[in-house]
């Protein structure tokens, strides 16, 4: 059986000492930043990207992925213990998780969150293994018009589903595309928007932009925000959930996994959307909805499973189509490109070690998280007390070294400083930055495929409508825009996107 052989191959890659170490470092760092509020996976992955430059691609991707799903675990730990969502994905977990902790049931809440996440992670791994190969096979038929339409759909969907005003998100995608066009034009060699600066003819560095807007910009915003009061932490006595807990949590975990997997492949929906959807479903079908908000274990089990399944399934479009559906996936794609790997359906056939190794490592990483997290809870709680004023100068220092190490260029440091201000101002004006990063990453590919398509179609845009697959994507894009424009959907927009 192919699936079986592939997975075994993946595990043989992931089980090398080097990859296990990188996986461990990834989930550990991920949990750490998940626990610490004020620093998220986007900033951390941007900051660590330069360091992975010298690491083999498989190990680099394994570590970055570990940071990503590790952060979800860490975020739920602090949500339950101190009512402080370390990540946006764990906002929902606060509701019933913290209530359970106040009733002295912090242990079972943490355990159920871990078990739910692990189960969802396992299913997520299997789903990727099952659905990625046929999807990549399908994508091999794509020509330039199909890719253009697919990317257009991805960008529009991401903008529409992400946080805040649709026009603002679409504008951010456009701005990202524009930033992506800086540098020498691939077709003619003409430097665009370079202002005579040599460093700019190669384009804006991906890391420079990401660190600038996410790390520096985020710190500026955090320094102005009013401080969260520190809460007393409940002690964790017994970790083991009762048999009754397990019985109550079983079905919500299953449903949460399904919801998470569904939202996972949709562009633009952060894990917060999946966990929120799962919470609403559990509350709606519960026999006694009034228990929710007062420590219902279903309200922890479902959303936690959902956000982890979502996190894993986000990899499917990125790995098979080269289409990043969230900010973190845009960073992953950037990491691949930096390693000289052209993202797309060929990755699976040309770099099977990378593909299957990464998938297997996610399962191993999830297992590590369960084993690692429960005994280390005491340590994480203590870390929470670390003041932000000591943390952010360290983030600045590592970000700076990271950017400088790319090209030993002071100019890129100045550029990152500028993007820090730009990022902060944009956030203040109510723009979300993830769509911009998506646009920036996809921009050069989108333009290239547009120009190739127009050559193919001899200048006739109907090339996008006469090819069935491309037409499908165009219709889907139009539908998304129409649905958003309908007055009934104007006020009901998802929470947040990662």
């Amino acid at each position, binding site marked *: 059986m192919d699936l079986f052989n592939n997975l075994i191959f993946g595990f043989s890659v992931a089980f090398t000492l080097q990859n296990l170490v990188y996986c461990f470092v990834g989930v550990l760092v991920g949990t750490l930043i998940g626990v610490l509020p004020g620093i998220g996976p986007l900033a951390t992955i941007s900051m660590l990207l330069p360091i992975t430059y010298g690491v083999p691609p498989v190990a680099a991707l394994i570590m970055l992925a570990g940071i990503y799903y590790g952060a979800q675990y860490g975020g739920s730990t602090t949500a339950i213990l101190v009512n402080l969502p370390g990540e946006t994905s764990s906002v929902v977990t606060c509701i019933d998780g913290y209530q359970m902790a106040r009733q002295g049931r912090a242990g079972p809440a943490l355990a159920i969150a871990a078990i739910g996440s692990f189960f969802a992670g396992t299913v997520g791994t299997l789903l990727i293994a099952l659905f990625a190969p046929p999807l990549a096979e399908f994508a091999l038929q794509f020509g330039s018009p199909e890719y253009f339409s697919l990317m257009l759909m991805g960008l529009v969907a991401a903008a529409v589903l992400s946080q805040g005003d649709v026009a*603002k998100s679409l*504008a951010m995608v456009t*701005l990202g595309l524009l930033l992506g*066009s800086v540098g020498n034009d691939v*077709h003619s060699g003409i430097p665009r928007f370079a202002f005579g600066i040599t460093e700019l003819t190669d384009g804006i560095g991906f890391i420079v932009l990401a660190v600038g807007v996410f790390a520096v910009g985020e710190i500026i915003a955090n320094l102005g925000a009013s401080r969260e009061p520190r809460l007393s932490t409940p002690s964790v006595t017994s970790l083991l959930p009762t048999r009754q807990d397990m019985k109550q949590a079983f079905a919500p975990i299953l449903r949460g996994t399904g919801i998470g997997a569904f939202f996972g492949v949709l562009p633009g929906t952060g894990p917060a959307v999946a966990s929120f959807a799962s919470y609403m479903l559990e509350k709606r079908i519960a026999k006694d909805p009034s228990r929710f908000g007062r420590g219902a274990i279903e309200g922890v089990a479902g959303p936690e499973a959902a956000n982890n399944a979502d996190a894993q399934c986000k990899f499917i479009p990125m790995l098979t189509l080269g289409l990043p559906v969230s900010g973190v996936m845009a960073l992953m794609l950037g990491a691949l490109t930096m390693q000289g790997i052209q993202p797309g359906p060929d990755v699976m056939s040309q770099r099977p070690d990378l593909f299957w190794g990464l998938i297997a490592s996610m399962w191993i990483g999830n297992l590590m998280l369960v084993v690692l997290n429960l005994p280390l809870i005491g340590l994480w709680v203590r870390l929470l007390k670390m003041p932000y004023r000591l943390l952010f100068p360290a983030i600045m220092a590592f970000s700076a070294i990271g950017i400088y190490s790319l090209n030993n260029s002071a100019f890129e440091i100045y550029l990152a400083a500028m993007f820090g201000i730009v990022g902060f101002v944009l956030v203040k004006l109510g723009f979300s930055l993830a769509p911009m990063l998506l646009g920036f990453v996809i921009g050069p590919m989108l*333009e290239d495929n547009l120009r190739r398509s127009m050559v193919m179609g001899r200048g006739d845009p109907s090339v996008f409508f006469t090819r069935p697959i491309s037409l499908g994507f165009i219709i889907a894009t139009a539908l998304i825009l129409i649905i958003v424009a309908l007055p009934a959907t104007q006020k009901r927009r998802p929470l947040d996107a990662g």
Partner: protein
Amino acid sequence: MMKVEFLDKKDFWSGVVLIAIGALALLIARDYPFGTMVRMGAGYFPTILGALLVLFGVHLLAKGLRSADKIEAGGSPRAMIMLPLSLALFGFLMDRAGLVPALAALIVGSAAAGSEFKLVEAILLAVLLIAFSVAVFVWGLGLPYTLLAGF
């Protein structure tokens, strides 16, 4: 203090920013060959994007004049100046004075951007972080940086 009606309106300013960026892009892209539909020149794509940004900007500006959505307070002006400035100083000093002074300036400078700044604590933090960075990045990972120029 009296305020002009639209001065703190979020969408209004969003629109202004987008129109400015879009117009600038359109203006600069005029210098690049536009090409034809079949063979798009270097200026084709940026021109479309610039025009789109202006359109989004006009939409937001119009919306902003009607809505009451205000820019929230928060975000300290001090951090907005100090953080990018210390980062830029890091780049400047890296090229001229070496890693140790560059990091020292960056860490103390950014710590000073916070509202709970304590000089002694910041210096201690800088010493610790510099020692860690030199050990990990220069000795461990072998990044070829001068620690202190002239030594």
